């Protein structure tokens, strides 16, 4: 496994430069994946600019409130990423159980009056003007937990073991369903499926799981756990124009906005759909709409390319990982990011339902930004420790 790594090393001039500069650092720091870091930073920087464009408002005195906060989130996120990359990821295996229990406790506590509600979902702790969303942290904990439990013993993943592992994973999902936040539950489910698949689940078992996931989603949709408008939002994407002023409104306006960006967009800060507030939640879930309208196909494709690079580096690190635990961590991060990217961007372009899943690294919001950087920190960690 080391041969391809060396061969690829030459492709990253930044890394070879760093090798000279960081000669005195611990060995691990000489193997930082600068491509991944650069792509993540570019995306986050573009995200900050887009959040500003979406929230500056109209008039002579632009609002910088969201700009400042998002920039702060990114700075803290980068520090968090560095911090998570700093220790050896293998020690996470020893901490997996306390981390999982702590995370479950937070998910439980947020349902009590300690948590606060917004738009019908009780998902946040609120303090000092900031909100913490435990289900975001929970995504990473799920990945760490699955990677740990799937690699406890070197043995085949038979039906019993699979059922046990997924049974444990179902606990946080059930808690999040009580908030209720179907979007995040789907992220959990898809991430778990992806990790289990790569870990070597039998095709027969995997097919059953896929079926269970689909049936489960349909049952939840029809069970009344979700408020009527949440259901409408989820199903309206099949024909947004039919209900352009109701549930399909966001998506319809978002599609128009992206489409009217044409090749190079209307220019930064000049999108009329976003500037005139036709797209709700444009700085959070619909941030890609701003990219599309103001930077056009070129800007949108560049974002997709950079996201592709991030995914590629996750995938590549999974390939290079020194052990199966590291590989599954990277696979988990990759699947989580891939699903969120596809669901979020697909939603803004009218090919996926509206579920309220943020675009990693770009959507406005502290919990989402920190989670994305932490996840990338994990992958960097695995990459850095691939030889040691």
């Amino acid at each position: 496994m080391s041969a391809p790594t060396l061969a690829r090393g030459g492709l990253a001039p930044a890394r070879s430069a760093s090798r000279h500069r960081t000669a005195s650092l611990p060995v691990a720091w000489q193997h930082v994946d600068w491509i991944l870091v650069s792509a993540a930073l570019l995306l986050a920087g573009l995200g900050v600019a887009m959040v500003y464009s979406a929230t500056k408002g109209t008039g002579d005195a632009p609002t910088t409130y969201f700009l400042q906060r998002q920039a702060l989130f990114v700075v803290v996120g980068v520090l968090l990423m560095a911090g998570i990359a700093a220790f050896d990821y293998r020690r996470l295996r020893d901490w997996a159980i306390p981390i999982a229990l702590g995370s479950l406790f937070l998910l439980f506590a947020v349902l009590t009056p300690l948590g606060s509600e917004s738009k019908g979902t009780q998902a946040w702790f609120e303090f000092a003007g900031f909100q913490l969303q435990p289900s975001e942290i929970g995504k990473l904990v799920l990945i760490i937990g699955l990677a740990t439990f799937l690699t406890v013993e070197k043995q085949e993943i038979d039906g019993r073991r699979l059922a046990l592992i997924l049974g444990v994973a179902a606990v946080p999902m059930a808690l999040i369903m009580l908030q209720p936040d179907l979007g995040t539950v789907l992220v959990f489910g898809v991430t778990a499926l992806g990790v289990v698949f790569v870990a070597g689940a039998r095709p027969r078992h995997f097919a059953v799981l896929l079926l269970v996931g689909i049936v489960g989603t349909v049952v939840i949709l029809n069970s009344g756990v979700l408020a009527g408008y949440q259901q409408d939002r989820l199903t309206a994407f099949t024909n947004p124009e039919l209900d352009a002023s109701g549930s399909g409104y966001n998506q319809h306006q978002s599609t128009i906005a992206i489409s009217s960006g044409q090749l190079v967009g209307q220019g930064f800060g000049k999108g009329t759909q976003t500037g005139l507030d036709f797209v709700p939640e444009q700085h959070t879930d619909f941030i890609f709409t701003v990219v599309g309208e103001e930077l056009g196909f070129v800007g949108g494709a560049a974002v997709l390319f950079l996201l592709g690079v991030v995914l590629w580096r996750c995938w590549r690190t999974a390939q290079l990982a020194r052990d199966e635990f590291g590989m599954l961590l990277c696979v988990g991060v990759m699947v989580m990011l891939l699903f969120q990217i596809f669901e979020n961007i697909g939603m803004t372009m009218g090919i996926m339902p509206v579920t309220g899943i943020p675009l990693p690294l770009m959507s406005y919001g502290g919990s989402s930004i920190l989670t994305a950087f932490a996840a990338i920190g994990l992958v960097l960690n695995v990459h850095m420790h691939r030889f040691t």
Partner: protein
Amino acid sequence: MSENTGLRLSAMAIVALSLLGALTARLAYLTTIEAEASAAAAKENRVRVLHIQAPRGRILDRHRRILVDNRQVRQVRIDPRALDEAVGGDEDRKEAVYQRLADELSRSGIAMSEQDVEDALAENQLQVGPYLPVPIADDVSEDFEILVAENQMDFPGVDVQRVAVRDYPYGTVAAHLLGYVGSITQEELDSIENPEKPYEPGDDVGKTGIEREYEQWLRGTPGTRTIEVDAEGEVVRELGYVAPVPGDDIRLNLNIQVQMLLESRLAQQADLNEATGAAGMVLDPRNGQVIAMASYPTFDPQAFIGGISQRDYDVLSNDDRHPLNNRVISGEYAPGSTFKPVTAIAGLRAGVVHPGDSFYDDGTYEVAGCSDDTCIFRNADEVELGNVNLERSLTVSSDWYYYRIGDNLWAQKDRLGDDYLQQVTHEFGFVADTGVDLPGEHDGFAFTPELVAQYHEENPSAFPYGDWHAGNTINMSIGQGDLGVTPIQLTNMYAAIANGGTLWRPHVAQQILDPEPADNVWLVDKRLEQERIGHVDLPPGWRDPILRGLLGVPQSGIGGTAGEAFDGFDLAGYPIGGKTGTAQVEGLDNGLFVGFGPVLDGQRPRYVVSAIFEGVEQFGGTVAAPVVRAVFDGLRDPALLPMPLSAEATPTPTPSTTSSPGGESP
């Protein structure tokens, strides 16, 4: 690691590439093939239709003096959505803005606390809806306007806009009759049909009085400016413009000078006698034109400008004396002795009394064949009035004479029917609205044996007795008991007596004037035309003695009940007929007087003047007649009338350029 991990990782890569490929393909499709249609849709989103408020028509008096005008005020408004966006939904920062606004307003002379600003925002938002800036305070200074404009960072979402509001040059004068305007409510938006002059949330609409009755004419036709805006909301170009058309002016029959005189004397007398309320009106008996109409206590229509606060409205509407009610058309009073001419006509027509019949009024009337206490009816203070005939019975206001008529009408019910008096009452226009061009008119009531039985059956607790006795008819014959009339009905009844029997529909407005081209008179509304609503047959043999009797009422020399009030009035040169009335209501009296004149040979009287006081301790001759006399003084000699503010209205109002955004809400 299982041996096929590499394979599975490859499968993952394929899935990831496919999904990213799908997104890229969708993006390419949207930005190329779909682009044109979307560009059109996006452009449609950039089009704004701004509604330009048209000035509302003015209200003029009969001599074209302006009673209600428009003026521009500087209004402070908060756009809640802009504020929200500016502070990022942070409640503390919002409160800081409210606090700053309250401080600066207070410094500029409009005392408001932070809580007042929040209250005004919450209350007025209900009226203007979620998409428009919400008015917070009116009439701010120019300095304040500059302050807000120059310190937009401190006042996000706050602006000062010049808006046209109603102006009342005569203050509270004729407030009930003119009415007031207010922001249109959701119910009104749903119910008012006027496709030519569409309404939007935040528009003014007439709520009461003439403002409401002639809303369709007074309201101007809004103009529109269709513009395209860029991402900043800045205007890129104008796509269309339709100029607003000012509303039509309404010219009333009202004479503001007579109105001022009537109101001031009515209020003066009401205060002096601690009346709970009063009403008065001046009517032209020849055609039904309303020359003056006053209700006491009154209110200040100025308070409704820019939306009255809920607190102020509650004070007005919870006041026991009901200052918002126009008592002339909605107050229902026992008419007392002013009702006697109706009883006289009923008695004459039924044949139970003849004009020449004379009786000795010893102050106590006993119902025939009945001697217990309930069968004895007394004159007020049991005064003995001696020989009375029809003429004399009105001059000295003998109850005895009318008790006798009532007793006989009831005694002969088999021949006449048991509601003979009530039927004549109806004939004089009572128990039905007069159709005056004002909203909120009441019908009044006159119970009959049949109605009383029915009410008792339907609601025994409110109507404990279902039987009708001789006493009920006898009481009604002097205008007491089961009888309620509105001042406008009573005034109109005297108009019919004065003009020979015709009931005209009272009308307040006379013309609709298109303000441009000036003086183009429109006579298109039915309510403006003279209209006969009834006729009472008054043969000279009956009317002459009644007239003579009424003409004696103001004469002190022959014992007229209003003699004192008309002391010194030149009754020979300007003969006035009238009738006093005093009705006992729950321990206190209602004092009434209705007069008409001048009663000259070969001329029909020109004025009927009425005054009614509720909750006083004096007779109508003492409390109400002096007010009527003062009005006649002014009618006879215009030099005695209060001076008006201006001679005549200017023909063209200044067009307003105020606009409000709206139209195509997303």
